[in-house]
């Protein structure tokens, strides 16, 4: 047996004053009477009946003590359980952004924490508990313990993140923990009615919250400056929404829009300054979930790579490179000395300068006896050109399917160590190789596009994009947005010495540029700044982290049916809580009636 409210047992202290009252001598009220001789007989007879009186007094005392005990038990709300062996509670706490909602005060998460503390309070000395926080990944906050102080401390540390929560994964972890021992119970503290297999008891904390959310912010170039496109959705009662657009922190414009229940609106903000870097859209109305009232976008049309194409004219290459909006292509013809300028990528078609530039290169049909010492003399006719599926950088060929490539003639290439062959012929002669050199990344086509049907294939632009992405990774600016908690691949510049990320609140994380790092602590919403240091130069790029409104903004749950309490999977033992405080209350009333009868008619 355990108590849901052990503090109620403090009422047992009432027994002490009760006994003191019985022990204290009764205070007699003085009355002067005409005579006492009639009362002397009364006193004599009462004295004769005193043993019974004493017994009656004791009986009254016992009844009153019993009444206090029952009263204290009723307050303490005892519960019976089917087993004396301790239980292992595994509490899974949903820490999704929706748990920040304030439609129940102070918030869904705080209410869930209180509920979990109540459960901890009912634990007996034999019980243990494990607390799992369900975020994007489940996290064991407190491992199996019976220490209530430790458990409460763990509960205090729980918070709702800005991300979604993978409850399924957390329940799988919980079940794995439960399967190890006996008498396990899985309790889910969440705000959703969605049923999950294996949950013994649901603790659901939700109200009928009203919420407005910014579901999208993006930018595009317009005729007169930038255009910012935003989408606002109403997940509650009809509302007039006030929106504010800030460009680089300064207010640019304010608009109002009326939204019906469940309605959404696309709002365009035109003539936004092209030089604006970050754009923040905010809903000024108050609602029950504040975290999705702001959205961000960055201007991805500002920083661009510069690439040099040296060719007599090759429309296939021009068009393939032109697909990348962040690459500014500079075209020139053979012999023009543009090496003195800095380019991120050099593309040579049947030509190489005398001195190779420092940077990434894509070379088509390299000349013999040129500065590149990978070309042997002579040409050959490749037979049965095929794709090498065993290359290390497999993302380059993962979307290329065509196999009927025809190549009329090709240069013989030496294959340096650590270089990959992308295309080869039947004899294993390399036709397209790539690899890292001291100068940068190098891609060599052993043939001229004019001698091949490759440019005519649909796979050519795909192959070119893959090669461009390998040499010039898409800038971080090209990330329209990412969701809180999702890992962000940081693509450092070749010449970067150090790369760091500065969160919206100003926290700085530093990384080595290679191997290419991932940034994981993206739980904060807002604009993150990526700073790359190359020598004395600093390059800044930005990416926004926004709420996944499609999953998190609707506070009114789609699952209206409450899950069955006590649904179990094999391996979970049952708990039979029998709340008997009502019976204690009735027993108390009966006892008081008996006490009243004994007092008045006991003689």
């Amino acid at each position, binding site marked *: 047996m355990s108590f849901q409210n052990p503090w109620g047992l403090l009422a047992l202290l009432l027994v002490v004053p009760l006994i003191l009252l019985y022990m204290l001598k*009764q*205070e*007699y*009220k*003085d*009355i*002067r*009477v*005409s*005579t*006492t*001789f*009639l*009362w*002397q*007989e*009364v*006193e004599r*007879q*009462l004295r004769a*009946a005193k043993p019974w009186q004493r017994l009656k007094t004791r009986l009254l005392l016992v009844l009153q003590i019993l009444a206090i005990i029952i009263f204290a038990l009723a307050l303490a709300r005892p519960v019976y359980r089917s087993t004396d062996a301790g239980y292992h509670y595994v509490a899974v706490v949903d820490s999704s952004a929706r748990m920040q909602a304030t439609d129940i005060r102070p918030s869904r998460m705080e209410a869930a924490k209180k509920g979990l503390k109540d459960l901890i309070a009912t634990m007996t000395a034999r019980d243990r508990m494990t607390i799992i926080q369900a975020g994007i990944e489940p996290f064991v906050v407190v491992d199996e313990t019976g220490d209530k102080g430790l458990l409460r401390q763990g509960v205090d540390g729980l918070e709702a993140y800005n991300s979604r929560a993978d409850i399924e994964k957390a329940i799988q972890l919980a079940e794995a923990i439960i399967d190890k021992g006996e008498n396990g119970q899985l309790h889910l503290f969440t705000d959703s009615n969605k049923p999950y297999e294996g949950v013994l008891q649901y603790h659901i904390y939700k109200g009928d919250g009203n919420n407005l959310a910014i579901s999208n912010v993006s930018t595009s170039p317009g005729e007169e400056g930038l255009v910012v496109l935003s989408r606002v959705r109403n997940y509650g009662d009809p509302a007039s929404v006030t929106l504010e657009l800030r460009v680089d922190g300064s207010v640019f414009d304010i608009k109002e829009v009326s939204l019906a229940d469940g309605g959404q609106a696309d709002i365009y903000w035109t003539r936004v300054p092209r030089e604006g870097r970050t754009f923040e859209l905010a809903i000024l109305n108050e609602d029950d979930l504040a975290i999705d009232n702001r959205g961000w976008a960055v201007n991805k049309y500002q920083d661009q790579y510069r690439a040099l194409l040296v060719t007599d004219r090759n429309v296939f290459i021009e068009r393939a490179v032109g697909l990348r909006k962040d690459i500014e292509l500079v075209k020139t013809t053979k012999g023009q000395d543009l090496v003195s300028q800095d380019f991120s990528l050099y593309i040579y078609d049947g030509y190489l300068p005398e001195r190779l530039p420092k940077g990434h290169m894509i070379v088509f049909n390299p000349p013999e006896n040129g500065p590149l010492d990978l070309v042997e003399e002579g040409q050959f006719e490749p037979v049965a050109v095929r794709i090498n599926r065993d290359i290390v950088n497999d993302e380059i060929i993962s979307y290329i399917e065509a196999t009927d490539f025809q190549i009329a003639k090709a240069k013989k290439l030496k294959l340096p160590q650590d270089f990959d062959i992308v295309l080869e012929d039947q004899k294993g002669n390399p036709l397209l190789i790539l690899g890292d050199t001291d100068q940068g990344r190098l891609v060599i086509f052993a043939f001229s596009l004019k001698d091949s049907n490759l440019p005519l294939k649909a796979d050519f632009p795909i192959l070119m994009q893959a090669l461009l992405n390998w040499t010039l990774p898409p800038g971080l600016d090209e990330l329209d947005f990412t969701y809180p908690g999702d890992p962000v691949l940081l693509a450092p510049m070749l010449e970067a010495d150090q790369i760091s990320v500065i969160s919206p609140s100003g926290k700085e994380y530093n990384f080595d540029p290679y191997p290419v790092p991932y940034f994981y602590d993206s739980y904060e919403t807002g604009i993150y700044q990526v700073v790359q240091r190359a020598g004395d130069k600093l390059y800044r790029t930005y990416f926004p982290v926004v709420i996944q409104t499609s999953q998190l903004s609707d506070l009114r749950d789609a699952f209206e049916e409450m899950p069955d309490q006590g649904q179990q999977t094999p391996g979970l033992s049952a708990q039979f809580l029998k709340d008997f405080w009502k019976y204690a209350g009735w027993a108390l009333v009966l006892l008081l009636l008996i006490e009243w009868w004994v007092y*008045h*008619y006991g*003689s």
Partner: protein
Amino acid sequence: MKAFDEDFLNKLEQLKLHSKKTIQGGTGGNRRSKAKGSSIEFSDFREYSPGDDYRSIDWNAYARFEKLFIKLYMEERETNISILLDSSASMGKTDPNKAIAAKRLAAIFAYVALASYDRTCLAAINKSTVDQVPYFSGKAGFPRILSFLEGIEFNGETQLNKAIKSFSPLYGKRGITILISDLFSHEGYEEGLKWLKYNHQEIVLVHLLSQQELDPGWTGPHKLIDVETNKEVQVEMTHQALNLYKRSLDDFLEGIRGFCSQMDIGYTLVNSQLSIEDIVFDSLYKAGILS
């Protein structure tokens, strides 16, 4: 509250003391005595003997029987009325209503006696005679009675037997003695009443008790202090204790009634809480003490 107001005095005019027996001795008065005399109320005949008042000869009887008979009449004589008022502490210290009722009762009896031209004496007694108004007659002396009653203070211990015996004016005189008391006398009352009987007294016992004495409505623990002896009794006033008291009181009253019946003593129990009208009409009239 004043014991004797105008309203009270007006009511007295209509009262008359009723005596079961005729009283001998004394002269005059309005009370019929056993002595056949010259009043207008006819009683009997007897043969004439020398010395008789010839005005009493019934000449009609002489014509019929040729013997001289004289008419005998009830002779109206004055009676000695003694009113003994228990003035012990128990009569007045615990309940002011009881003291007022006691004085009023004494006044009622005194007035009725004086109005009947009886010789009336009033005495306050506790363990002896404390004070008294000697015998006198005539309504003109009633203010003297009232003045005496108003001066009475209720003090001391009740010893009725001793007190009654100490009332010297009674010696050798027939008459009516009215005792107003709560009979809370530790040594008893029987001996005193017997002594009065021995002294040819017709006794009227007015037993005056307060509402609190008849039905104490107390609850909880009480220390009862005897107002005369300061004896203390501690009692938890429960349902049971009050029932025991009721039984004890009933036994006490039953004993008095039995004794009075045996001794041919007129007895009435009076609740001091009642109004004077209720006392006169419900208690004294019904008991045949007043008419």
